[in-house]
């Protein structure tokens, strides 16, 4: 039982990281119909920013430096995302396949640039020692870092909810996901919302990257690509365009993966894909998706 608790919370933490990547993907897809293959590159950029900040600028290993590195990683991811939208995506509106292709190219370029700059081997990022502590739950011991991932993801989910519910831009995004043509017809410039969605999506991915360096004990050029595939799966299971759906799916994917992987090595990744197939067979629109895609 204690092993189950440890694994479950670890899986929950992994799911939180998936959520950080997938929420941005889901929003971007829901609003703009862009499948962003470069989203993993945003995450990796955030991870490298964390590495640089915690080893070269403030290498004191304190919690406050770590917190600052999270913020900086988020901003780096956001800037990268906004630049992508402004330089590449903007000129290809309503050419959905081309948009996806351009992000594929960008992902490739970014990964090979990281490879050229930082080398193949993962760079080690040491989080503050406090994160190595464990918390006792019943009989089980669980790493503190797991709760950090979950906490950050919950904050992002909450912020997302409040923004969607109570701000004007959130209203525009919600309306845009439902019916973009109508929003445009009402004279609202949806393009600003596009840029904004890329900003928050990139920010969440950058944050995820910073936390992923703790989860994976470092950062390599393909860190983001590894997360991206499971983030895609999460988005499809949750229903595209639905952030709460993404959150539920992220928890399911993360816990299933970690639990099954513990009992049969490697099978967890496989089971997650089968889960995706199952969801598609029973409910093609995903858990909380409104329309079949």
């Amino acid at each position, binding site marked *: 039982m204690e092993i189950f608790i440890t694994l479950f919370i670890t899986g929950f933490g992994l799911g939180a990281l998936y959520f950080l990547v997938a929420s941005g993907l889901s929003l971007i897809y829901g609003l703009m119909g862009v499948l962003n293959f470069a989203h993993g590159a945003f995450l990796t950029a955030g991870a490298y920013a964390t590495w640089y900040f915690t080893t070269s600028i403030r290498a004191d290993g304190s919690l406050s430096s770590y917190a600052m590195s999270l913020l900086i990683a988020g901003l780096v991811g956001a800037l990268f995302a906004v630049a992508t939208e402004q330089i590449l995506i903007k000129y290809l509106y309503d050419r959905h396949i081309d948009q996806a292709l351009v992000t594929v190219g960008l992902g490739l370029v970014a990964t090979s640039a990281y490879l050229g700059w930082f080398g193949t081997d993962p760079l080690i990022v040491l989080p503050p020692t406090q994160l190595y502590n464990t918390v006792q739950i019943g009989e089980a011991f669980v790493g503190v870092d797991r709760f950090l991932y979950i906490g950050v993801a919950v904050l992002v989910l909450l912020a997302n909810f409040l923004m969607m519910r109570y701000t004007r831009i959130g209203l525009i995004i919600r309306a845009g996901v439902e019916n973009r043509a109508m929003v445009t017809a009402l004279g609202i410039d949806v393009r600003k919302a596009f840029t904004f969605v890329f900003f928050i999506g990139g920010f969440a991915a950058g944050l995820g990257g910073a936390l992923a360096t703790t989860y994976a004990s470092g950062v390599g050029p393909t860190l983001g690509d590894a997360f991206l595939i499971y983030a895609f799966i999460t988005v499809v299971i949750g229903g595209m365009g639905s952030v709460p759906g993404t959150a539920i799916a992220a928890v399911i994917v993360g816990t299933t993966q970690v639990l099954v992987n513990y009992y049969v090595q490697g099978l967890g990744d496989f089971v997650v894909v089968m889960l995706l197939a199952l969801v*598609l*067979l029973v409910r093609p629109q995903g858990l909380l998706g409104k329309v079949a895609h």
Partner: protein
Amino acid sequence: MNLLPSKYRYLPILAMVFFGVAAFTPILNEPGLQQTFAVAFLFAALALTYDLLLGFTGLLSFGHALYYAAGAYGAAYAMARWDWGIIPAGIFALFFATAIALFTGATALRVKGIAFAMVTLAFAEAGHVIAVLNMWGLSNGDQTLQLNFESVPDFFLGVNNTRNLYLLALITLILIYVAVWWLTQSSMGRVLQALRDNEERVSVLGLKPFNFKLIAFVLAGVMAAFVGVVAVIVTNNANPVMGSTQTTISLLLMVILGGIATRWGAVIGGLLYVVLSQRLTTLDTQGALSGLPDWIGGPMSEPAFILGVIFILVVMFSPGGIAGALYRLRMKFGSAVK
């Protein structure tokens, strides 16, 4: 879409005859070069099967590498573990790949467009994971599943026989080219292209889009598996990279660079991609980048960086790739001459 005017129709045939004859002349006599071209032919063939999906049916799959790997592993496994000869092993591999393509295709085709892309990606990733982790002892993991030399005829073995491998790869490319040409010209091919252009219209005519798309998906998968079987003979192993998303993405690059839905565009894209990746790697070792500062020289030494940049530029500024660019040139100057 026929971008090639009829008087140039014989050009692809001429090019293939040239490559066949060249292997016996000093132009392409060196085993290293022959091996490079053999791999390039196989990737060109693979790109063609991908174009059948992307260009002619309008299906953006991110999991095409799965069927290539299934063919390669199916054949390599039957040869290595059961001591089968290459022919029965190859046939087994094709059936194996067909079964996988049927199941994954039927599931993935329940969704459309971008979601379809994601689902195919996920299936391919599952296959890739099985190969990397050597699950159930199937794949030998990163050690690669070696070709059983007892299972193939002697004239495909050893450096001295590289030319035979080269010819085998060339014949594979020609076979796939003819098969894709025949398929796309057939009445089914016309339905596929109609599906790509307007699916609703096809279903109003009483045809079931799902069935046709599934047939195209499975056929493209089986052809990719066939290329995979040949790849085991040419490269002497089946390895996890074959089934990686990276492989599918390079196929996508080849088709887009060469020109979508033109057949010969995919071939040119495939050849160019393989040769360029090999040549660009030597850019760095030859010191061509030594004058550049590290922040730009580092990425430039990665072929994927340059190819990725070219790819982005082609998607943004030259839809239709090389084939499209040639077509526009002809429209501009060809009519002026007449």
